[in-house]
């Protein structure tokens, strides 16, 4: 065990994967000499050389297209997109190509690429360094979507992603890159996909969150506990595959659900969770499902503290559901 920040855990995960398998390569903008603008790839080019930690020209479609070609051959590329906000030039490669290669080739061309991208608000990044658009990717069949919220999960989910057989969009909550530290197992630590993490057990209301919203939800649960409300916190860890069983089981126990994400509300991932609960846990619900989300606006600069769900908003939503029935 080593005490690490989340971004250090990402770094150790990449290092471990590259030590395990010479076919693991990293490519992206500033990932080599500079070690990444967030230092997620710090020291890796020194250890593994410029042939495996590749500074590319500035083109997201080029980065992901190149990574796809490497994966079609059988390498295990990890592409870094500097901010999720800049991924859209590569959206065609991700949605039209990466997600569909296995299907359209009848399994002849599996295409396993990990696309890492820091995402989310809270760093005063304005419209183009803050967005949380995981729903685009979760909506696309063929992709998996993983979002860690702790240093241990950052390493464990990343190692699982690198050794998975399917393409993985790996979203890193940059707001908590350095805000939290935690014990991270050394060596080949893997956290399976599709297994939600029970952060805190509770009996009155289930709060579902992922990424940087997990600590926010956990803080809200502490506030609620002082008021006698017992909140259960579930960290989804992977949106695809989704641990549907854990989500439903929790609501069957508590009868109430609050869904928290930074992303805009309309067609956000919370809508899918709410629909699943309405379809499969309807008779357990004692109160309407509540969503605490970003606004249906572009991501603001000065008012980001208003835009982002905070402890108060999450706690208030939980209180409302508890009072409703």
């Amino acid at each position, binding site marked *: 065990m080593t005490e690490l920040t989340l971004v250090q855990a990402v770094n150790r995960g990449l290092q471990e994967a590259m030590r395990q398998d010479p076919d693991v*390569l990293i490519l992206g903008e500033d990932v080599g000499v500079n070690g990444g603008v967030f230092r997620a790839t710090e020291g890796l080019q020194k250890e593994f050389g410029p*042939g495996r930690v*590749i500074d*590319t*020209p500035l*083109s997201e*479609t*080029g980065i*992901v*297209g*190149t*990574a*796809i*070609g*490497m*994966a*079609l*051959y*059988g*390498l295990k*590329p990890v592409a870094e997109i500097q901010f999720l906000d800049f991924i859209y*030039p590569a959206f*065609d*490669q991700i949605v*039209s*190509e990466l997600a*569909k*290669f*296995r*299907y*359209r*080739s*009848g*399994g*002849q*061309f*599996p295409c396993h690429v990990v696309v890492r991208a820091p995402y989310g608000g809270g760093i005063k990044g304005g419209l183009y360094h803050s967005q949380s658009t995981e729903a685009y990717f*979760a909506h696309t*069949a*063929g992709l*998996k979507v993983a979002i860690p919220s702790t240093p241990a999960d950052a390493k464990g989910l990343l190692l699982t992603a690198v050794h*998975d*057989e*399917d393409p993985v969009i790996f979203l890193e909550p940059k707001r908590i890159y350095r805000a939290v530290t935690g014990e991270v197992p050394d060596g080949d630590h893997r956290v399976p*996909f*599709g297994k939600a993490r029970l952060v805190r057990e509770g009996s009155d209301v289930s709060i579902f969150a992922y990424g940087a919203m997990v600590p926010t939800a956990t803080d809200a649960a502490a506030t609620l506990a002082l008021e006698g409300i017992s909140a259960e916190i579930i960290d989804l860890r992977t*949106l*695809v*595959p*989704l641990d*549907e069983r854990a989500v439903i089981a929790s609501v069957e126990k508590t009868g109430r659900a609050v869904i928290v994400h930074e992303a805009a509300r309309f067609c956000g991932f919370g809508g899918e969770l709410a629909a*699943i609960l309405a379809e499969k846990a309807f008779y357990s619900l004692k109160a309407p499902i509540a969503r605490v989300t970003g606004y249906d606006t572009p991501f603001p600069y000065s008012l980001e503290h208003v835009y982002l769900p905070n402890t108060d908003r999450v706690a208030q939503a939980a209180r409302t559901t508890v009072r409703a029935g």
Partner: protein
Amino acid sequence: MNPDSAVEPLSYTPEEAAAALGPEWTATLEKAYRWMALGRAFDARMQGLQRQGRIGFYGAATGQEAVNVAAGLASTSDDWVFPGLREQLVALVRGLPLEEYAHSIFGDALDPARGRQMPCHPTARPAHYVSMSSVIGTQISQAVGFAYALRHRRERGVVLAFFGDGATSSNDFHAGLNFAAVFDLPVVFCCANNQWAISVPAERQTAAASFAAKAPAYGLEGRQLDGTDFFAVYRELSMALRSARAGGGPVLLELRTYRLTPHSSSDDPRRYQPAGWAEEGARRDPVARLEAWMQAHDLLPADRRAKIAAAADTTVRAAVRAAEAAPPPAPETLTEDVYASRSSGPAEGTE
């Protein structure tokens, strides 16, 4: 391919032909002609089937046979092909069985891709022919990544990246050529310029003097050549492959051809092609040009030519018969191959 139609003659002496095709040049020529005849016959048959409603769609490569056959014959089994839209014949020359290709056009149970793609989108890993989408240009940067992998593993292969004139306007043309040149990778970029992106002519894709002229700006060499001249295409492709294999880096070949059939079965070129264009194209018919040259040099006697045509017809008919006899894909294949294992998907999904 009417031998009497006035085609632009290929002006090669037998010595020049031998220099272009190598020591086994007459055998290569015979093989090339058979493949071109087969490609032409297959295209004609498929267009007929489409009009009869027996297949849903077809996009012929009529006019591009010299490029496709030369690429298939000049490349080695170590090389890989990333197709654009009309390179199916390259896959056939490289070993994709015609019957298997027919199954993919019919989208039946014996199609390796289970009928998931439209016709003309075959996938053939054993032939080193990569699965294509219908999106224009995306394969160009993928080809570059594949070449990176080949070099990483110290393999001898070179990647042939095909695309049309329209694709030179795409993001991935720019990204792909740029990355390939910066990383100095073994890629032969083949712009099969058939002069039309559906209805938009080549001069609407670029104001540059040619598509090949774009290459030097990326730091690689670009060469424009007559894509209806089998000798020229074979010679230049062989040279480019040899050079890339020896570490000479990427190159862009612009292969100028004439699209002699509509963009696809859903297209009507009378709406946009100027009068006389088809006639000009017919004079540059690559099959007719090669045929005329071979006849002029006594390399294709009439009976031999008839035999080749009959053999092509028989092969095509057998492939169609096999495909029409195959059942449609089983419904449960709908949800296969989305992920490596069926349980990996979002929830259960399909109940």
